[in-house]
């Protein structure tokens, strides 16, 4: 008995994968639990562990080749030399990229926008769903028929879906009702992935996209006004920008890594759908720095950074201002009861934000240890989905680069992000004198659907008083 192994879905947001290394060779025997290959996903490089055992008879994709989830990647057989020609045929018929079908919201429409799932940060506008693997190629209803012969009952024969994979003719399939929903919401459905047969976009895909804050439909002409509801930015086209006409200077094109694609998609969607506004405050950090020195002296073996302390300060402030620790969902505001802070980490490939959970319960030392571990894993592309998904608030610190001030783009579906600039030694007013002081500009970007100006200002006031009088963290 031979079987096809397909590109697995290793994370809820994974749509395509790349084999980076085969860890076995053709002809090898492989056991359950052994790693067959290392697979690069949109977030990390992960091990693909076998759920079956057998002999590896063929590899169907090249390392480095990007294929959608569900594409056959190898042939496994029970015995070392049995005939696999049928399976090879099957592989050929499924091979050239079947359209990926990441599962969107699996909730009934009556449940509203199905936002019961924890949000995925930073990327993926679609909410994650629990289902991993692709549906099998054979129509499942045949296996579940009550009794024997005539299949004329169920629809597999006549009307309904033939194969799960999209026919590959380039047409985007959408159910009439889903199309109506999308048009009502001003949603651009052309770029959505459908979870129905043949890649059909169905109502729950639209609902999922709305809950995840998908980009609204754009007018076709680039100069036209953006569709109502879009942020008043220059309309970013859903497709690739047209190359400029006229003679070009010499250039080289770089392929997009998956991470880059995800960042591009998420940041665009964030700026297009979330009404951002920025509130800045210059805080005096002498007391904060002094506290760090004191802690260093008392606990020489514990390394904590200013950023670790800032994460804690934010958590304290967020508890006092829960509106900042919230999320906008179409028909309600969700307030989180814990503070899970996502920390922006720069890697070779791009930006990723691992999450420190329940910061309100942790001290500096634990926060520091976790952040360090997560940052290292992030740089090695080894973060698991549980480590980078979710988060109720994000901090991005560019102080180490000498940036004096900046504002960050909100990670949807969070409602705010704090941009922390560098500590600057500069003149400050003390009483009636001008003295040297140390300041740091912090800028909060807020989602105006949830957070009004005063709320942002009050949060910053609390945060800066915590930074300037750190013992307030004990209150």
């Amino acid at each position, binding site marked *: 008995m031979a079987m096809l192994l397909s590109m697995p879905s290793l994370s809820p947001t994974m749509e395509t994968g790349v084999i980076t290394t085969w860890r076995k060779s053709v002809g090898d025997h492989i056991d359950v639990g052994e790693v067959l290959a290392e697979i690069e996903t949109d977030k990390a490089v992960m091990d693909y562990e076998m759920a079956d055992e057998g002999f590896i008879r063929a590899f169907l994709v090249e390392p480095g080749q990007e294929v959608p989830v569900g594409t056959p990647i190898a042939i496994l057989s029970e015995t070392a030399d049995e005939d696999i020609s049928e399976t090879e045929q099957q592989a050929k018929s499924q091979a050239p990229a079947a359209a990926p079908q990441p599962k969107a919201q699996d909730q*009934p*429409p*009556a449940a509203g926008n199905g936002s019961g799932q924890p949000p995925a940060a930073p990327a993926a506008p679609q909410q994650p769903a629990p289902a991993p693997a692709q*549906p099998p190629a054979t*129509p*499942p*209803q045949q296996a*579940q*028929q*009550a*009794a*024997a*012969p*005539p299949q*004329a*009952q*169920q*629809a597999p024969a006549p*009307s*309904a879906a033939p194969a799960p994979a999209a026919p590959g003719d380039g047409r985007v399939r959408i*159910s*009439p*009702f*889903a*199309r*109506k929903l999308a048009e009502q919401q001003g949603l651009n459905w052309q770029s959505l992935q459908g*979870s*129905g*047969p043949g890649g059909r976009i*169905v*109502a*729950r895909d639209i609902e999922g996209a709305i809950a995840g804050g998908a980009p609204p439909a754009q007018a076709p002409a680039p100069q036209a006004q953006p569709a109502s509801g879009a942020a008043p930015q220059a309309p970013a086209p859903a497709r690739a920008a047209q190359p400029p006409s006229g003679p070009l200077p010499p250039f080289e094109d770089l392929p997009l890594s998956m991470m880059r694609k995800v960042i591009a998609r998420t940041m665009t969607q964030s700026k297009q759908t979330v009404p951002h506004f920025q509130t800045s405050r210059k805080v005096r950090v002498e007391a904060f720095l002094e506290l760090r020195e004191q802690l260093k002296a008392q606990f020489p073996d514990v390394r904590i950074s200013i950023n670790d302390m800032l994460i804690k300060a934010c958590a304290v402030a967020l508890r006092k201002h829960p509106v900042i620790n919230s999320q906008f969902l179409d028909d309600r505001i969700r307030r989180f009861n814990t503070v899970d802070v996502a920390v922006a980490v720069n890697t070779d490939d791009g930006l990723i934000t691992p999450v420190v959970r329940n910061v309100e319960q942790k001290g500096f030392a634990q926060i520091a240890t976790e952040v360090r571990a997560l940052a290292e894993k992030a740089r090695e592309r080894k973060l698991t989905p549980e480590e980078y998904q979710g988060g109720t608030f994000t901090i991005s610190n560019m102080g180490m680069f000498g940036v004096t001030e900046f504002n960050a783009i909100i990670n949807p579906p969070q409602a705010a992000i704090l941009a922390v600039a560098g500590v600057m030694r500069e003149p400050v007013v003390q009483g009636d004198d001008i003295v040297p002081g140390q300041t740091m500009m912090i800028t909060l970007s807020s989602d105006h659907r949830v957070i009004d100006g005063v709320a942002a200002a009050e949060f910053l006031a609390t945060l800066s008083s915590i930074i300037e009088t750190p013992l307030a963290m004990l209150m």
Partner: protein
Amino acid sequence: MGTQTIFFREALNQAMVEEMERDPAVFLMGEEVGQYNGAYKVSLNMLDRFGPRRVVDTPISENGFTGIAIGAAMTGLRPIVEFMSFNFALVAFDQIVSNAAKTLYMSGGQFPIPMVLRGPGGPAAQVAAQHSNVVDSLFAYFPGLKVVSPSTAYDAKGLLKSAIRDNNPVVFIENEMLYGLKEELPEEEYTVPIGEAEVKVQGSDVTVIAYSRMAHMIQGALEEFAKENISVELVDPRTIRPLDVDTIAASVAKTHRVVILEEGHRFCGVGAQIADDIYSRCFDDLDAPIVRVTHTDNPLPYAKNIEAASLPSPAQVIQAAKQVLYRL
């Protein structure tokens, strides 16, 4: 405001008795309706009550006595023709289709045919191929006939009274397996209009359209649907022709998913017509193609197990519902 708990067959009996009391032109004819009190006891005691001029035992000659009934209707009477089963009505198919259905039209309106052709139709319990025909779509096919098929005793009584009062030939298809059902009905008189569907069960996930015995089957299987987390809206057309598309369309607009269930065959079955009406009216409301659950494409055998396998079951309807919900 009293109620009575009676059998489905008694409800039919009451409808005929009340209408015969009300209008002396109404009379009943058919095999065994008089002295035997009805092959299924639907006409119990009616001969005693109304006498042999109004409760007429016929020979086994459907073609003949249906023709007689049509003649009676043309000359001012309002016959109720009972077929021992609708399988036997096929012997009188030409009378029904060529004469009953067309005479009003062909006579330029001079001869309305106010008659009811009633009896049990469809599969029963191992009555085998020739006695299990589902004839609904055969009669619904011809303009000039109304076709009614109730699933509850309440509907049966109300619709039969309306059918008797209707000036058109009405094919009234009952189901032998429902005759023994007990139900609580009002004591006072009421009618149910022909041509109106009813939402028997409110739901939100999927519209299941079913009538007669199939509607009854779904009513009894609601728990199984609930176990699968499927909220069913059951729409019973009650009248096959004219079909109440408005009620169906309102349900489709609400749930966006349709399963049509029928005891008859797939090809040219009643469900095919209903599907066509839905696609025409409700295309933009559909999130999935309509799925039909029907009798398999074979004559119904005598063997109990194959009979069961050939007919729809709640499990199949649940599978169909999951299919349109994309939960398979």
